[in-house]
């Protein structure tokens, strides 16, 4: 067979562009297997044809994704592995990680804020308690210094026959303008009754008011200047204008 004539016939160009019938194509392929020259010529024509068609390329009106979707959505092609789809997303992993981190930071920040608010409230309460305690402390110191002052006098009121074990203490300052009464040594009064403090001045009892027994608080009352002695009687609630002498529990001067 005259290979040069065969090549020159133009059939190989027809073969490359796909203008031959199945039968003719098979014949050309047979020739390619048989003659290396034919095979080489076909390859050269392919390269030329590709260059030529590339020169007449036109911008495809569909995007890469659209083509992919078209191929994917066609029945029977559902088997495309999603592997590459995943690999397309993995570069975004740090972004997702950062997102999750941000959200978790946001929530922990929120929680921290709430805790701080709680702590602040608690702190305010403690502060108030502390201020009160300080104030009380100052007051107690003042009283203490008042009591231990050499200018103050401590009057011990001793139990009468009515209540031998009862006692009370009255602290009087120098000018007798103010007194403190410690009532923790008195028995609890029966219901409907109240203790009443009296000052004795020149033999006359002067009402200093009723009080409730307390084991922890000193009772502060205005003093009676010139009083020589003090006594406590049990009276009806609210007190009496004159002391009930039979009900005198303690007395001292």
């Amino acid at each position, binding site marked *: 067979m005259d290979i040069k004539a065969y090549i*020159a*016939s*133009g059939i*190989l*160009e*027809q073969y*490359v*562009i*796909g*203008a031959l019938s199945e039968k003719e194509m098979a014949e050309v*392929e047979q020739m*390619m297997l048989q003659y290396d020259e034919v095979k080489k010529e*076909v*390859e*050269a*024509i*392919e*390269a*030329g*044809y*590709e*260059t*030529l*068609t*590339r*020169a*007449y*390329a*036109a*911008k*495809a*009106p*569909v995007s*890469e994704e659209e*083509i*992919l979707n*078209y*191929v*994917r959505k*066609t029945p*029977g*092609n559902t*088997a*495309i*592995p999603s*592997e*590459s*789809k995943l690999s397309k997303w993995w570069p975004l992993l740090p972004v997702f990680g950062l997102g999750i981190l941000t959200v978790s930071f946001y929530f922990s920040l929120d929680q921290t804020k709430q805790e701080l608010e709680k702590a602040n409230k608690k702190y305010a309460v403690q502060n108030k308690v502390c201020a009160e305690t300080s104030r009380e402390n100052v007051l107690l110191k003042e009283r203490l210094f008042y009591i231990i002052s050499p200018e103050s006098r401590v009057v011990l009121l001793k139990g009468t026959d009515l209540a031998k074990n009862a006692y009370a203490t009255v602290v009087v300052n120098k000018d007798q303008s103010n007194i403190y009464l410690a009532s923790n040594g008195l028995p609890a009064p029966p219901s409907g009754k109240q203790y009443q403090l009296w000052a004795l001045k020149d033999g006359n009892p002067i009402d200093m008011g009723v009080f409730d027994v307390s084991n922890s608080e000193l009772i502060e009352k205005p003093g009676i200047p010139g009083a020589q002695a003090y006594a406590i009687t049990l009276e009806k609630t609210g007190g009496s204008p004159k002391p009930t002498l039979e009900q005198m529990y303690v007395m001292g001067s």
Partner: protein
Amino acid sequence: MQVNTEDVITGLLISRNEQGIRLLYRHYADTIYGIILRIVPGEEEAKEVLNDVFLKVYDNITSYDASKSKLFTWMARIARNAAIDKIRSANYKMNKSTQNIDNNFEAQSKKYEAVIEDSGIIKLIQALDHDLQNIVRLVYLQGYTQQECADELQLPLGTVKTKTRRALLLLRESLKGEGLFLIFFAFGMIHLIYKMILS
């Protein structure tokens, strides 16, 4: 020139990897669309054909034989035949006067001027004589058979056959110089692509 790129794409398509379609699109979509558009003038219909070509390539990749042709050639054949089927099914008439074909082609060339990539080739074609230019356009670009081309141009079939060959030979001669560089370039690219896929 992209034989090795083609091997990679073929491998991916056979293993049903979507990346194969992506690479196919990036390398050939515009050229294949150019082939279709020269045969099917309606953009909407040409687009349908383009979609179908990608689907056919994906579905029939196992029947592609790399020892017989380049992947591009195989795909271009599918495109050409799908485009021809399209215009036949749409009752397009192939039998128009030579004048009409020329006008039609001129109109199309103008229409797609903006998207043409390689004006160097276009210049080479324009330097060919009138008959050769028409043959290149009809046979290589518009999907005419040699017989149809002979009828259109009112030339003997034998003349069309020899001129079909000569036209491409002339273009090939002009392009020889570029070959070696492209081979080196292609090797570099393949190496890169392999690394990307394997990593």
